[in-house]
C-alpha cells in the first residue's frame, strides 16, 4: 500500500480533500506538519492547496522556507514522487523544484470553475495512467494561476515533454495554456487545477481519479 504524506502549512485548506482522495484510492495517507523535518516512511508527498503562510509576499514564497521543505527537496531529488496542487504548485515553483512562476490571473479575478484539461504528456507520476490527448474535467480555484516562464524555459519544457496538462480554453492567461508541469524526470509535478475535488460524479466529475489514481498507482510498486 502506497504511503502518502500530505504536508500541512499554516493556511493550507485542501489537505482534508487530498487526504480523503488518497484514502479513497487505497493509499495509506497521513498529514505532515510543516515544522517536521523528515519524510521517512513515505512513498509519495502532496503539497495541498490553500494559502500557506497567508500567501504573504508571494504565494509559496514563505512556505518554501518551512522546515519540511528541505526534506521535500531531498525527497524530490532522490526520485521520490511529489505532487503540488494549486498553492502546492506555487510552493514548488518558489522552491525551484519545477520551472516557471505563477502570477496573478490575467483578468485579476479569482477563478472558481470547471475546466477541461488536455493530457499533454504521460511521462509523469500524475499522468502515467492517462492517455495523451485525453480530456479531463477538473475544477480550478485560484487568483494567482497564470503560468509564466521565459522563452528558453518554455522551449525546454516543450522539448522535454514537461508540459503535463494544458487547459483546453485558457482561463487565466497562462503561457501556452499550461495547467501543469513536471520536472525533467517526471517525479515532481505541479498543477493549478484540483483533481482532489473531482473524485465523484456526484460532485460534478470523477476525472481527478485518472490523475490521482496514476499518482498512487505509480507508487504501488515501490
Amino acid at each position: 500500500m502506497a504511503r502518502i504524506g500530505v504536508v500541512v502549512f499554516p493556511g493550507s485548506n485542501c489537505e482534508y480533500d487530498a487526504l480523503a482522495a488518497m484514502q479513497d484510492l487505497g493509499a495509506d495517507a497521513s498529514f505532515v506538519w510543516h515544522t517536521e523535518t523528515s519524510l521517512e516512511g513515505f512513498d509519495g508527498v502532496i503539497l495541498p492547496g490553500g494559502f500557506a503562510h497567508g500567501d504573504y509576499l508571494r504565494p509559496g514564497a514563505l512556505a518554501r522556507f518551512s522546515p519540511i521543505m528541505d526534506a521535500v527537496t531531498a525527497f524530490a531529488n532522490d526520485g521520490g514522487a511529489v505532487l503540488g496542487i494549486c498553492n502546492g504548485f506555487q510552493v514548488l515553483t518558489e522552491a525551484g523544484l519545477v520551472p516557471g512562476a505563477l502570477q496573478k490571473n490575467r483578468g485579476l479575478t479569482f477563478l472558481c470553475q470547471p475546466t477541461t484539461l488536455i493530457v499533454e504528456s504521460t511521462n509523469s507520476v500524475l499522468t502515467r495512467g492517462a492517455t495523451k490527448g485525453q480530456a479531463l474535467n477538473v475544477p480550478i480555484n485560484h487568483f494567482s494561476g497564470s503560468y509564466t516562464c521565459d522563452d528558453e524555459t518554455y522551449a525546454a519544457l516543450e522539448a522535454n515533454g514537461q508540459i503535463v496538462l494544458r487547459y483546453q480554453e485558457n482561463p487565466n492567461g497562462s503561457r501556452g495554456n499550461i495547467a501543469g508541469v513536471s520536472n525533467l524526470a517526471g517525479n515532481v509535478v505541479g498543477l493549478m487545477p484540483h483533481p482532489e475535488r473531482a473524485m465523484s460524479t456526484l460532485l460534478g466529475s470523477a476525472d481527478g481519479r485518472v490523475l490521482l489514481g496514476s499518482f498512487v498507482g505509480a507508487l504501488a510498486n515501490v
Partner: protein
Amino acid sequence: MTHYVIVDVTLRDGIADPEGATIERALPALGFTGVSNVKAAKSFRMDVEADSAEAALAKATQLAERLLSNPVIENAVARLGN
C-alpha cells in the same frame, strides 16, 4: 550602525503586469490623460545593522534576492533611504 534601506521589487521586462495594465485603463475615466506605461511594483523598507552603508546594501540585496523577489519574474534593487 543602522542604515535605512529601501528595496524595490519590479517585474522583469516582458513579464505581463495585469495590475499595472488595469490601473492604466482606469485612469482616463478619472480624468487623468497622457499617463502610460504604468507598472505595479513592491517596495520594502527596513533598518539594517551593518558597519557601512555598502555592507547594509549588500545584506539587503542578498535577502531581496533570496526572499523578497522571485528571480524567475522579478528584479530587486536595494538603495539607501533617508
